[in-house]
């Protein structure tokens, strides 16, 4: 008898890490942008009680166009290329042109009270979250990623290996960049502190 086990349908998630020498300036720029773009309000408050505009609505200015963050956004694109190339290398050989990565939209959140319920990023190939200042996130406020397998199976002791990976959460740290396929749904778990937690998120397309 021979047994072969095949493990298909894996999902690649990449971690990069970088603290730039102008980290504080980047942080200040993002906090300033959040103030102007309604991305520092509490998102634990229900929509009906929010006095300001919906923080989930479109941004008046896209962070990707901010000249002070151009080096950072180029690095994001480079990291996405690295990730996408690693998992697509054998397929890209058949393409006439090597794909290039473009950030389609980029935004930040800077809030002392934060929760972003289960969601995905449509119209995007790869997405990223860069943790600028995780503040007290080691206590709470992790990003939770959900399995892309449709949770539609009969469940018993034989499916515990699926159930155990229904979601995963990484403990973020300042300078961590998580790159993941945009079809992966995720959730920013509740964060409440005296200190603000600041992150940058973005979507990309490859053409």
């Amino acid at each position: 008898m021979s047994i072969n086990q095949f493990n298909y349908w894996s999902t690649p998630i990449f971690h990069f890490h970088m603290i730039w020498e102008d980290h504080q300036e980047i942080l200040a720029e993002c906090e300033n942008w959040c103030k102007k773009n309604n991305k520092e309000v509490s998102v634990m408050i229900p929509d009906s009680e929010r006095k300001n505009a919906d923080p989930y609505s479109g941004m008046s200015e896209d962070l990707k166009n901010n000249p002070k963050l151009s080096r950072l956004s180029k690095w994001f694109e480079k990291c996405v290329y690295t990730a996408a190339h690693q998992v697509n290398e054998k397929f890209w050989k058949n393409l006439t042109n090597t794909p290039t990565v473009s950030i389609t939209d980029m935004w930040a959140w800077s809030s002392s009270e934060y929760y972003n319920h289960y969601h995905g990023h449509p119209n995007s190939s790869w997405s990223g979250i860069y943790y600028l200042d995780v503040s007290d996130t080691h206590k709470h406020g992790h990003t939770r990623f959900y399995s892309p397998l449709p949770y539609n199976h009969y469940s018993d002791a034989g499916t515990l290996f699926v159930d155990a990976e229904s979601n995963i959460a990484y403990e973020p740290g300042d300078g961590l960049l998580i790159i993941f396929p945009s079809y992966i749904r995720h959730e920013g778990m509740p964060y409440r502190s005296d200190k603000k937690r600041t992150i940058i998120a973005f979507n990309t397309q490859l053409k």
Partner: protein
Amino acid sequence: MNIERLELFPTVVWCIDAPEQLADAWEQPLMTAIQSKLLPAQLPEHHQTDSTLHTIPEIKKFIDWIKITVQSQINGLGWQVEDLDISGMWATRLSSGATHPMHNHPNSWMSGVYYPTQYSGHDGELMLYDPRPAASMFVPNKMPGASNRYLSNTFSFKSQKGRMILFPSYLWHGVHTIRSDSRWSMSFDILPKGVLGRSGVDNRVTL
């Protein structure tokens, strides 16, 4: 020109408010039943009972109301179901800072939530998520101010004493962050009882 718009594969969700006098009459017996089945708290902000609340004789009238109400709605859709079995019922108290991440209920057909008491806050909504993973591949922009069920991938219900939300068990759901004192809810799973499937045609099973 003939245009026929088909609304296929809908997910039916019921929001059923019990008559006020019934909700008032049930409140005390339900809370007594809940207290009798409380388990040690796993997290300070998350208390839960075991899943046998439906077996407590003192709340039989409430259980019967659920079964009769659900049966009538299911029959209204055209399902031929001989009887219903509540396979589990449990209560949860979420306190300030808590949330209940996205999940669904495997091995169940219909699920529901009932709110036995009035919650003081306006948050802690029950969040229902689009069960169609492929529907988020590509999403156009919405017209300014447009908001309707065709454009949304999330729907929320506020908790209200006497309110029951009933939905298919496959539907992904969760609870948005609680900011006030505490919120009680009772959840349950329902299976059709009797013989399922037609002899010689479908997989036949007796529950």
